[in-house]
């Protein structure tokens, strides 16, 4: 099912603070079980549900961690 928006977390720029997970009104972000190069469980998109609100982008303290495609994104 196509969703309205799309979000991406760069796993190597996430410090696992969890603020985006808290902020997401659609509950579509979760912690990954993997450990990244900084030693954290990074956040990741559940794969669906994003409405492109950008809340996660603005709560995220790392400049290079989150990208939000407000109008969705073609994914292979």
């Amino acid at each position, binding site marked *: 099912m196509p969703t309205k928006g799309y979000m991406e977390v760069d796993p190597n*720029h996430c*410090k*696992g*603070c*969890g*603020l985006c997970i*808290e*902020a997401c009104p659609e509950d579509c972000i979760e912690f990954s079980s993997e450990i990244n190069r*900084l030693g*954290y469980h990074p956040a990741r998109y559940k794969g669906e549900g994003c409405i492109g*609100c*950008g*809340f996660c*982008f*603005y*709560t*995220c*303290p*790392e*400049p*290079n961690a*989150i*990208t*939000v*495609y*407000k*109008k969705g994104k073609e994914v292979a």
Partner: protein
Amino acid sequence: MAKDILSTPKSFYKEFFRKPDADKTNTHYCPGCGHGVIHKLLAEAIEDFGIADRTIIISPVGCSVFAYYYFDTGNVQVAHGRAPAVATGLKRANPNSIVISYQGDGDLAAIGGNNILQAANRGENITVIFVNNAIYGMTGGQMAPTTLIGQKTTTTPYGRAAANEGYPIRICELLSALSGPVYLARGAITDPATIMKTRLAIRKAIKAQMDYKGFSLVEILSPCPSGWRMTPVEAKKWVKEQMVKIFPLGTFKDETKEREPIAYEKREYTKEEIKQALGLDKEAPHFSHSMDDVKPIWRNPKIKISGFGGQGVLLLGNTLAEAGMEQGYHVSWIPSYGPEMRGGTANCHVQISTSEIASPVVDHPSILVAMNLPSLDRFEDDVVPGGLIIYNTSLVTRAPKRTDIESIPIPATDIADKLGSLKVANMVVLGAIIEKTGIVTEEAAISALNTVVKHKKFIPLNIEAIKSGREYVRNL
């Protein structure tokens, strides 16, 4: 204009090349730290206004000391609490720049409390981003002026008590009592709606500066999970539930509409004007006196003159420098003395050079004048090998221990006394320097006396002292 894709603002560097560690794309901030979010809001505003090329961000002392790693703008890192003073200078020198002073609560409200008050009161056309996290984050969580009553910090382990530490300082409320500021607001970065309000406030504050309206400040309540010993999510909750009670959010002053723009001379300097201001438009100065006849070790000398206050060491240095200038050399002279008038010690650093002098400080003199024993004790070891020590045997009761230097013992005070005034001991030494090294001529020194000696009636005695010093050294 709304963007379709939200990603790293362009006014951040793509790679944080100033960051010394290997990781050049992550910040140095702790997980969940408010500084990162505030940086992002600020970077986004700078990008959207298209002002990166004329923006200067001032990094304070505090966790945001390295803000200059991140912003692809002009950057200056300043002493603790002094950002408003530096911002004032930057802005006044170039009124067309956008100057943003980024400061923490320790920086702005403790050590820099008076700096911010005065800049706000003057209505300087700058923007202050004030990050209030109720703690000294960088140094490990000590109490800040903004720490809440009852809040435990490393310096208030039982909680801040009003009776002992006073009350949290509300900066927005305090500054809104002044006439200078044009825009004052307090925001937070808790839930998305509040973040958006803060985002707008930052933009309003910068816009006020762009429109030449005057002083603007946005205070932002910001989580410090590490300092507060909380998880990022708990810290955010604490801002919302505890901090906001003491630091209410909102706009405290907004006169952006009513205020007339400050009348600045909006100008940019041309390359020629800058060269002129720096004196680079003139031909290199012409030297009337080469140092070819001076022994190589004493050419371009670095001189330290030291003694008791009242022995005329500063005047001796000044006369030497002035004489050097008469001869067309580059010279520098800096005095260094304690708060005492006569009882203390004084010394001065003098350089005379055929090329420009980068720093006037003399740590390793090629010529040391020791007018008293403490001076010899203190500076003997600093003299460069092959250097010269001239010491006043009237007061210095030992010879230098160094064997790799030359030395001249001269009873300068006794010679001066015989001439009729203890005060001209310094000029006896000047004569000794001239005779021994020839770095300045006697004529130049006498001519310099006309500039440096206040009471002209003493000049003949000073000249006599110079001649006596020369004679003494000649006969050694």
